[in-house]
């Protein structure tokens, strides 16, 4: 692959747990993200799926440097940003933008749409004041809203329209990478497709790379040619979508796929056999030794408890990588 736009290597984020009382001590760490690596090429889309608590949102916040990683490297266009200071990050904030999950809490209710979308222009002093309105209207039109509505407040819009406002705000600075954290899960079904199609068109038109975070496997499949599956802070499988959905190699990927409902199949009458995963996800404070999935895995053997399987192709040179001692 040519020079990747974003390259993440052995990224870790450990949140300290403090004891209660006057004198606080660090009693442990929540290992939200524990050594993950991936890269995204220019204009490409990588999907990140997993259950709640697997660290996918934390990863999004690390890439946008809303969190400072505990360890590891994040390089954006060849430049290390994992350890950059706020000042050094300032110009970078233009290039990496974020779309949030909840369009009801991510827009300031006291600002007009024009102020919300125009704020990045003001902060980065890119467009003179007189030109701002025109740019805001342009953006509103791009995301399919009425350009005349720049003076309205967020509460005057529906959920889907608000999400479009959030998208317009993320587009204001013409970013090269958009981190979309569950961009449609708060929306009604009929509106979700509108927003997905919009994002897809924007990606094509402006050549924006996406880190697309979601728990809905069907939506991720629709949007991303390459998908990484996370479990307890680790990537357990990363593969092109054709391969992941037809031949998942990690038992967890397989279980996740079998659990997601399939309308087309149900319409034909047959109800599929689901893989029932026993129990809950273990705590990220004290993850299991060796392979983290072993406590719920039906293939687990002794080696799984002692040796952590590396993320690698099953056969050298094969597409996709999987972290499992006994891949499918």
């Amino acid at each position, binding site marked *: 692959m040519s020079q990747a736009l974003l390259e993440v290597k052995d990224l870790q984020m450990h949140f300290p747990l403090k004891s209660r009382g006057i004198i606080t001590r660090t009693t442990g760490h929540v290992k939200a993200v524990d050594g993950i690596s991936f890269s995204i090429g220019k204009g490409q889309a990588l999907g990140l799926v997993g*259950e*709640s608590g697997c660290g996918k949102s934390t990863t999004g916040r690390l890439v946008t440097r809303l969190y400072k990683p505990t360890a590891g490297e994040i390089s954006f266009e060849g430049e290390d940003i994992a350890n950059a200071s706020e000042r050094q990050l300032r110009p970078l904030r233009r290039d990496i933008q974020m779309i949030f999950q909840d369009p009801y809490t991510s827009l300031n209710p006291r600002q007009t749409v024009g102020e919300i979308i125009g704020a990045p222009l003001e902060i980065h002093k890119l467009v003179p004041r007189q030109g701002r309105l025109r740019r805001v209207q342009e953006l509103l*039109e*791009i*995301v*399919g809203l009425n350009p005349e509505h720049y003076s309205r407040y967020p509460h005057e819009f*529906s959920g*889907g*329209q608000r999400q479009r406002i959030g998208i317009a705000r993320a587009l204001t600075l013409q970013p090269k990478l958009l981190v979309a954290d569950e961009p449609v899960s708060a929306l*009604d*079904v*009929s*509106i*979700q*497709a*509108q927003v*997905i*199609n*919009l*994002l*897809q*068109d*924007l990606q*094509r*038109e402006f050549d924006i790379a996406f880190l697309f975070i979601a*728990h*809905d*496997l*069907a*939506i991720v*499949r*629709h949007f991303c040619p390459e998908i990484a599956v996370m479990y307890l802070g680790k990537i357990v499988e990363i593969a092109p*979508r*054709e391969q992941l*959905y037809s031949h998942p190699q990690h038992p967890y990927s397989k*279980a*996740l*796929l*079998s*659990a*997601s*409902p*399939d*309308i*087309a*199949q*149900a*319409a034909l*009458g047959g*109800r599929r056999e*689901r893989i*029932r*995963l026993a*129990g*809950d*996800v273990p705590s990220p404070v004290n993850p299991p030794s060796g392979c983290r999935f072993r406590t719920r895995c039906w293939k687990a053997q002794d080696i799984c408890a002692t040796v952590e399987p590396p993320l690698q192709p099953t056969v050298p040179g094969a597409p996709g990588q999987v972290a499992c001692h006994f891949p499918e």
Partner: protein
Amino acid sequence: MIRPFLSVENLSVQFPTPDGIVKATTGLSYSLERGKTLGIVGESGSGKSVSSSALLGLHRTSNAQVSGEIWMDGTELLGLPENDMRQLRGNKVAMIFQDPLSAMHPYYTVGDQIGEAYRAHQNVTKKETRARTIEMLSRVGIPQPDRRVDDYPHQFSGGMRQRAMIAMALINDPALLIADEPTTALDVTVQAQILDLLQDLQREFDTAIILITHDLGVIAEVADDVLVMYAGRAVEYGTTKQLLTKPAMPYTRGLIDSVPNVNDPLDRKLHPIPGNPPSLLNAPTGCAFFPRCEFSHLVGREKCATVMPELTPVGDGQFKRCHLPDSSVLYEPIRVDPTVGAAAGIQIETSVEAGNR
């Protein structure tokens, strides 16, 4: 006349507000037998939760006007004195709420909350209640139930809380269970566990289940029959298979087309339903779905805009609320072609147009 186990007839729920009357549910009728699952699908504000809360008498008479009839097992539930309703609630009719964290009291242990319904309805001692609570917890698959019974809700994970909610709802072996988005807040793996659990318990107790959801995938997995609601009214009713393969209402077609599927062809373009759901304050005079409908040009826009279609049978027990004379045009996915909408005079608010500008 022998009524089905549950029969809802012409149910309407309205909320008077300073801005006018919000018609949350209008003229809703359906029936359900024991051991069956009815799925109610619709977007937020379509009246699916409001109509089901009426079954439990959860609407305050001071701010809601409920009319119609609800018959369950020979008893008319609407207008039942509060004391009698209390006897039914949590006993013969139970409800599982969407968000288990806000539906549980943080100050009481999970065991106390589950056992409360049992003690309230059965003549039992504390000891018996505890034993029954532990039994229910183990039946819904909570590990070490004799220990977890004394935990507080915050000590449970999301999936475990939802299971505890199910234990609470099922402790008196209800004949009717209303599950309001029981898996929406959960991950797919946990969702699969909960749906399996509901089906197992249904088989065991012959429970009638009303499953309210916006997720067609969940419906496809567990419902026998489906009621599609839009703007407070039933717009289509039929078996799950009928609705998914031979939808008779453009809204149902739209819902199917707008959901991505794990086995879709990779290049499939999603076809969203244009526009937004209508306000329930000033409902359109004709068909409520008309402003978003991509098929109204086949009927004549005049008729759709002015005449509210009736819920009419289309054969094999399927019903539709639509003027379309021949619903077979809805059997195939809508072709992604922006001109179809334009011809029908709809301003499509989709990205297709926006992207081309």
